[in-house]
């Protein structure tokens, strides 16, 4: 028996680009981060909110922060208001 050559490809699924990754974030009393993954935040460059899919059973409610870390690295973190967890994300 000869295997169908496209079979292996058919079962491979596509992945999401820029999937959020869990992050360890310490926050100030106003909710802004002062430490991300054990690195101190040098400054918060920008802050914004994303509220989407509120009409579905999986609403998206996030508070984003673009921060510069002590090492000079730019990174974007957000707090998922639904699960009350923090994530880092590229491409935001």
């Amino acid at each position, binding site marked *: 028996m000869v295997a169908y050559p496209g079979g292996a490809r058919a079962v491979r699924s596509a992945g999401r680009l820029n999937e959020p990754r869990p992050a360890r974030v310490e926050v100030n*009393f106003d909710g802004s981060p002062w430490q991300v993954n054990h690195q101190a935040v040098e400054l918060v460059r920008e802050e914004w909110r994303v509220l989407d899919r509120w009409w579905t059973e999986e609403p998206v409610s996030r508070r984003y922060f673009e921060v510069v870390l002590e090492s000079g690295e730019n990174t974007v973190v957000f707090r998922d208001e639904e699960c009350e967890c923090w994530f880092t994300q590229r491409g935001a």
Partner: protein
Amino acid sequence: MIACIAVPGFELRAALRRAPSLALRPSALAPEAGTEPLIGPVTAAADALGVRPGMRLGEALATCPGLVLVERDPAAAEQAWEEILRSLEDAGFAVDPAEPGCVFFETRGVERLYGGLEPALQRALAAVGPGWDPQAGAAERRFAALAAATVARPGQVIVVSGDRLQDFLAPLPLSLLPLERERYAELEALGVRSLGQLAGLPGAAVAERLGPDGRRAWGLARGGAAAKIRGRRPPAELFEAIEFPEAVGNELTLRRAFSALLDTLLARPERRDRFVRKVAISARLVGGGSWRRTTTLRDPTVDRERIRAALAPKLAELPTPIVELRLELVALTESDGQQLELLAAGAEDRTRLREGLRQVRASTGSGSVCTVVEVAPWSRIPEARALFVPRDD
């Protein structure tokens, strides 16, 4: 312990340094241009006549027709605040400024230096200067320290020990919490008027009624989370300024002046080849007052064109002609080198790249090379915009 030094109405006090006689008259900080017409901090004379900070301008003028509006002077405020921070640092305090008029520091290291907590805080008040009427508070939590400093009288120190924390916070007003105005009204309508009353409610019920902000406020009313204080890294002191013989409002002239300042500033030997991370441009306005914009560059650079592209467009936001333009390098990097790209992108490289990908695929198996396919580039959710799909051709 965490200490907090607060200077209430700092922006107004800084602006009044140019017109000290107004400090004794009913006056208030003018609303910020282009925002809701709400007045800023007010003087004691205005407060006595019923004018409150955050009032609508029309209401404030109706309450006190003789109210004098003091022009905002953000550059003077920032400069004065920086002087205070440096004075505190000179006295040995590793400061963590929250905003102009509010700074935190950890007292552990300085208690022995000054012979105890209260002498250390008295030294901090002296470093700020009695002219600013600073107030000091200390507690084991950051929010409690802020609350203590806020309710202290000018020159007074309030220390809240861990076992007194809840008792101290309980009678304080809700206005200490960082909440929107509507939230205060909502809480007051529910009969909640003090931090203690809010802290006594079940957290889940508060979150359900007021959302995440309410939940955070509830946490603060119970003392707030334990957070460390980290001393700031003092900013660089590099600046250049140009004074114009007459007021200038022409954007072309301003851009030329900006370019000249930038060239001079980047050539300063004190920069020592370090890259610029944060840069500020400020101006003294012809009618008094000042204007200031700060930008943090995405990648530290000394490329004139990139700095110009980031800052020069802001000159169009100047509200009036100016008499002085000032450019500051607020933060510089520690490093003075930059990693170059391994492969420069170009047509001749594509063949090599394709061959490289073929080899990767041959050694790691199919599915190891993917291509990015945009599926919803307009989406506000970053991970919903594109997929990476295995590619074997």
